[in-house]
């Protein structure tokens, strides 16, 4: 049986030359993502904003959104959002945080139950009070920072500081672009999104580390090769692996995206964007060429230079 080869042997793409395009492009996209964050904003879910989320399923065929909206807006609960969620008889109700502390949130749920009565099945009710939402947000942000810092330390020990710094720049870039994606698509930004961001961080680094490992190996073997050539060779040698792995991860994510249901839809969509699109691009076009600027490999051909650590 002839086996499938997606990437032919011995490719010689000049990835490093592309940096003259990829760096400005990434800079531009990052600025765009940051301005999106500030001017368009994220669609904070109740985890971080507080409030109530109720998923109901109409027991009598497709849900009548207009009727439900009328019934709920009469309750005086402020902003109430209704949205079809997956099937036509599933409706997601979002109620903004009620003034009056923790007790007021619970009263809001009781009112909704009263207004919609028994015509619907209550599939999910989530109420997050003001105190918890504040804590969850700070936990999320601190967690993300902590993860980036811990990984930075690890890479610094395993490689050299230039590699650690390069990987960090690449991955902050990933996170920034993903946040931009979340802003454009306005997916709910909640705890699951933090999980998605952390996983993207992990995977993207995984990819970067594989290429860095190869670069380190090449640095030891070819002491006189110019850096751009060496980096190109490293990326090309690992290209087949990068592509195959991304195909398998995409296949797994695709299954989750198509069949995993609404509950994890935004999670997988974000992952698909972050891991497959951005992560791959970053490790090839950002993480590797940036090593040139960070001064990796300069002076390694000088005979007086001390032997690098094994």
């Amino acid at each position: 049986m002839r086996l499938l080869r997606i990437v032919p042997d011995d490719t010689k793409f000049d990835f490093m030359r592309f940096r003259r395009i990829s760096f400005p492009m990434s800079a531009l996209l990052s600025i765009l993502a940051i301005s999106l964050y500030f001017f368009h904003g994220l669609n904070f879910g109740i985890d971080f904003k507080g409030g109530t989320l109720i998923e109901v399923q109409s027991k009598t065929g497709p849900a009548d959104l207009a009727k439900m909206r009328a019934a709920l807006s009469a309750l005086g609960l402020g902003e109430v959002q209704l949205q079809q969620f997956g099937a036509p008889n599933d409706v997601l109700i979002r109620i903004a945080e009620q003034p009056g502390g923790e007790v007021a949130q619970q009263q809001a749920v009781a009112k909704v139950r009263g207004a919609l009565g028994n015509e619907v099945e209550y599939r999910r009710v989530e109420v997050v009070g003001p105190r918890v939402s504040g804590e969850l947000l700070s936990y999320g942000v601190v967690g993300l920072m902590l993860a980036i810092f811990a990984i930075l330390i690890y890479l610094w020990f395993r490689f050299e500081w230039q590699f650690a710094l390069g990987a960090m720049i690449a991955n902050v870039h990933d996170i920034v672009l993903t946040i931009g994606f979340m802003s454009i698509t306005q997916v709910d930004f909640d705890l699951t999104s933090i999980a998605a961001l952390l996983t993207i961080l992990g995977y993207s680094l995984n990819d970067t580390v594989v290429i860095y490992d190869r670069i380190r190996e090449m640095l030891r073997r070819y002491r006189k090769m110019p850096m751009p050539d060496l980096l190109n060779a490293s990326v090309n040698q690992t290209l087949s692996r990068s592509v195959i792995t991304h195909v398998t991860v995409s296949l797994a994510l695709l299954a989750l995206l198509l069949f995993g249901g609404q509950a994890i839809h935004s999670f997988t969509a974000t992952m698909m964007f972050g891991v497959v699109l951005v992560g791959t691009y970053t490790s090839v076009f950002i993480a590797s060429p940036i090593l040139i600027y960070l001064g990796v490999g300069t002076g390694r051909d000088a005979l007086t230079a001390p032997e690098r650590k094994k």
Partner: protein
Amino acid sequence: MLYFTRWKAAAIMLTALIVCLFAVPNFLPDKMVQSWPKWAQRHVVLGLDLQGGSHILLEVDSNAVRKEKLESLRDDVRRVLRDARVGYTGLVVRGNSVEVRIREGSNFDQALEKLRELSQPIGGILGASSGQRSLDITTEADGLVRLTLTEPAITERIRQSVEQSIQIIERRVNELGTVEPLIQRQGIDRILVQVPGLQDPTRLKELLGKTAKLDFRMVDVSIPPEQAAQGRIPPDDEILYSSTQPRTPYLVEKRILVSGADLTDAQPGFDQRTSEPIVSFRFNTSGARKFAQVTQENVGKPFAIILDNQVISAPVIREPILGGSGQISGSFTVESANDLAILLRAGALPAPLTIIEERTVGPGLGQDSIAKGKLSSYVGAAMVIAFMLVTYGLFGLFANIAVAINVAMIFGILSMLNATLTLPGIAGIVLTVGIAVDSNVLIYERIREEVRAGRTPINAIDAGFSRALATILDSNITTFIAAAVLFYIGTGPVRGFAVTLGIGILTTVFTAFTLTRLIVAYWVRWRRPQRVPI
């Protein structure tokens, strides 16, 4: 890299087998597993998002605890000064302190000495060594003594309240007859209650939210409550309202005759004459004695039965109640009578609890999520398996075997830990399949490279393994760090994702370093290949 001593190979296979075996109870009916020893019964617990249920986070009202603690301190000060016959003025609670001014001529030093005895070491006898005390006592020139509650003392009191509350909540929730409710402390002042399989958590929330402080007090009939409400409330009385609409005011004495703490039992029932639902109760000995005395002295007068500062009913005492039992009637439904009986049996909470977070998933959604999780896992696995076969042929099959064992081991470890599987957790497993394949891809691609570099097949396989494994370790540790952080900060479903992802990384590294190598090594020994089939 391809040589394994016999005992090493056996150890690897045995480890994998044992870990996989732990997954078995998940796939057998409960009845069969019940007769097994406890350690073998361990299994994966479905998260609330999959089996349906309620996750409720409660917080003890720390202001109420503080206020109660300050008021009892004020009463202590009054008692101490009275007993010592020390004159004083201006005994008030101010902020976190109780202030009192010792009157001139009184023995100031002696009074101070007595007040100092109120300051206790924190944590009882066991905590005495910490040297922290419950009060800071300062004095000012004009005879003012300020007793301030220390922060550790308040924290300690909140901690105790949480502990008592947990016991009471356990009693209340167990009465609902649900399976395996989880009730545990979170942080200093919070309690997490997780109850699986509830259709409607309204009743649960009502049982959790009530303090259930029951008092019996006399009704003051000397002036009509409406008149008293307009500003002439006698100092020993207060106005309380009925629990039912319309809210009728009652003028009741502040003095508590008998409290709910003296109850030994409470049962729902029906009134024999009116057949209305009622709650009948029984006092303990001292409660019965007090109740008998009070009813003897007050025949013909009304008394009030008060629950959480609302008057449930205010019957007139027709005759002395000597038997130590009685009944409460007051527009109950069968269910509310039953709930009140549960609350009274379980006892009153030391301080009010507030629901600060609630997440409830109905059983219907849980079923759907399980079905969707299964479907997406099967489809994802099938696609990955097919892709690996097409790309690597026989070695793809080896990889698929390794990944299958990998997934079985994940379930085995999850079972050993009695871990909770959530929908994001299933996503974590599906992603692990993706990443587990990656370790094989790294190895195989390296072997391909070594072949191209001109090595003999066996040499190439050997070199492929040894070079790829270092990379696999490095790349997986970074993902593991992310998973660990996620576990640390996450709650509920997100933590479930972190757990499966983290365990998945461990098993992936294990299988890549041992099983995949072992399989390939046996194949090499068996076939002595002339070319590498990838």
